């Protein structure tokens, strides 16, 4: 059982709104909404359209960014500096792709050679993106970048949060390099990571990087939740990957670890209706103040049983076998 290296910070926040934003974060996120609609910005925002000041929780977002300790802020600045290489000119005529599976393998090999742990490909899905936002590409190469587990065990304290920012910075650089490689094949490609108005998780689930866990984050068989996402959008034709079922729901239904360890108690015990889909959801209004107070928290990611190194594959195997046996027993009883 995972033990964090330091006890969590108290939930007595020395900051807050005198007048809360007129709509709650959960309302903006579409909690309880059974109709399918695209999401809207609520917190982090880079200023597309309406701009930063119009985002309901802009003050809290600004407070979060400006109160981050120096090592985090420095990593963030370096990450932004690296982002200027996210796009660039295409060199030469597009190569003809006859075998899409071989092309997918080539791109994945290239990503692995860059040190990217998880790489899978899915169609770019506009419906998962925020209202009014679109990207002119057909495919999304979804990537998972592992974080240093020993450092992450210091969450929600500074040391763990600095590791998150370091991963964001290095993953941006890796994604930039992969996009640049695709551009040398004559196909446009752009890297997207932290600080962009792109929603990565639904496409990562579609690509089969993992499944949504009770803590509202992705769980992969390889690294549990101890990783961060980036993606490269491109038109280069490649064979697509399918979503996976590693048994996350089977465990999350009964496991209480992230719920009991979440200091503000933001994790629901049951799936919720969110913009037309019943899924795991974290109470934004409870989570966001602790998230801001601790500069990123991430307790739920690290205490998750799936995040213990080397445990995911075995856990998945056991859960799927148990489900199969349960189904067989139920069928026999009928």
């Amino acid at each position: 059982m995972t033990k964090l290296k330091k006890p969590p910070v108290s939930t007595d926040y020395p900051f807050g709104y005198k007048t809360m934003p007129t709509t709650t974060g959960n309302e903006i996120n579409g909690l309880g909404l059974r109709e399918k609609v695209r999401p809207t910005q609520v917190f982090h925002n880079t200023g597309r359209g309406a701009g930063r000041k119009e985002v309901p929780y802009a003050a809290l977002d600004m407070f979060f960014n400006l109160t981050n300790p120096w090592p985090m802020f420095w990593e963030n600045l370096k990450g932004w500096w690296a982002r200027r290489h996210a796009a660039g000119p295409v060199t030469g005529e597009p190569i003809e792709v006859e075998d899409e599976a071989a092309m997918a393998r080539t791109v994945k090999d290239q990503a692995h050679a860059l040190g990217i742990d998880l790489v899978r490909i899915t169609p770019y899905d506009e419906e998962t993106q925020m209202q009014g936002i679109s990207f002119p590409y057909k495919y999304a190469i979804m990537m998972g970048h592992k974080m240093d587990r020993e450092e992450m065990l210091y969450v929600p304290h500074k040391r763990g949060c600095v590791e998150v920012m370091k991963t964001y910075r290095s993953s941006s650089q890796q994604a930039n390099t992969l996009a640049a490689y695709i551009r040398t094949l004559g196909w446009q490609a752009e890297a997207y990571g932290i600080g962009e108005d792109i929603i990565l998780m639904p496409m990562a689930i579609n690509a089969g990087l993992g499944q949504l866990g009770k803590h509202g984050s992705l769980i992969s068989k390889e690294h549990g939740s101890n990783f961060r996402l980036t993606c490269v959008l491109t038109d280069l034709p490649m064979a697509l990957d399918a979503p996976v079922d590693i048994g996350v729901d089977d465990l999350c239904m009964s496991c209480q670890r992230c719920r009991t360890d979440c200091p503000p108690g933001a994790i629901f015990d049951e799936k919720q209706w969110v913009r037309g889909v019943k899924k795991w959801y974290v109470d934004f209004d409870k989570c966001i103040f602790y998230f801001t107070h601790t500069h990123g928290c991430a307790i739920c990611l690290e205490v998750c049983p799936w995040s213990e190194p080397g445990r995911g594959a075995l856990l998945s195997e056991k859960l799927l076998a148990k489900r199969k046996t349960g189904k067989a027993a139920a069928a026999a009883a009928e």
Partner: protein
Amino acid sequence: MARQQTSSEKYFRVYKATWWQRRQRDWWVFRYLFRIFWLWFTVGGKLRREKRRAAREGRVFYIDHIAGGGSG
């Protein structure tokens, strides 16, 4: 509907990248990041001090005024 670019896409991403465009982009990004750094150093310094002071005194520091329409 025409595609709307984010400010970061507009200024961070250069698709033709001549020497001049790259220089312009780098200069823009540098100035942008310097502004953020300056904000973190000045306004951020004040906010961090206020947060620490409020924690010490056991009161709440209100953030409504930051970024203008936060309480909208």
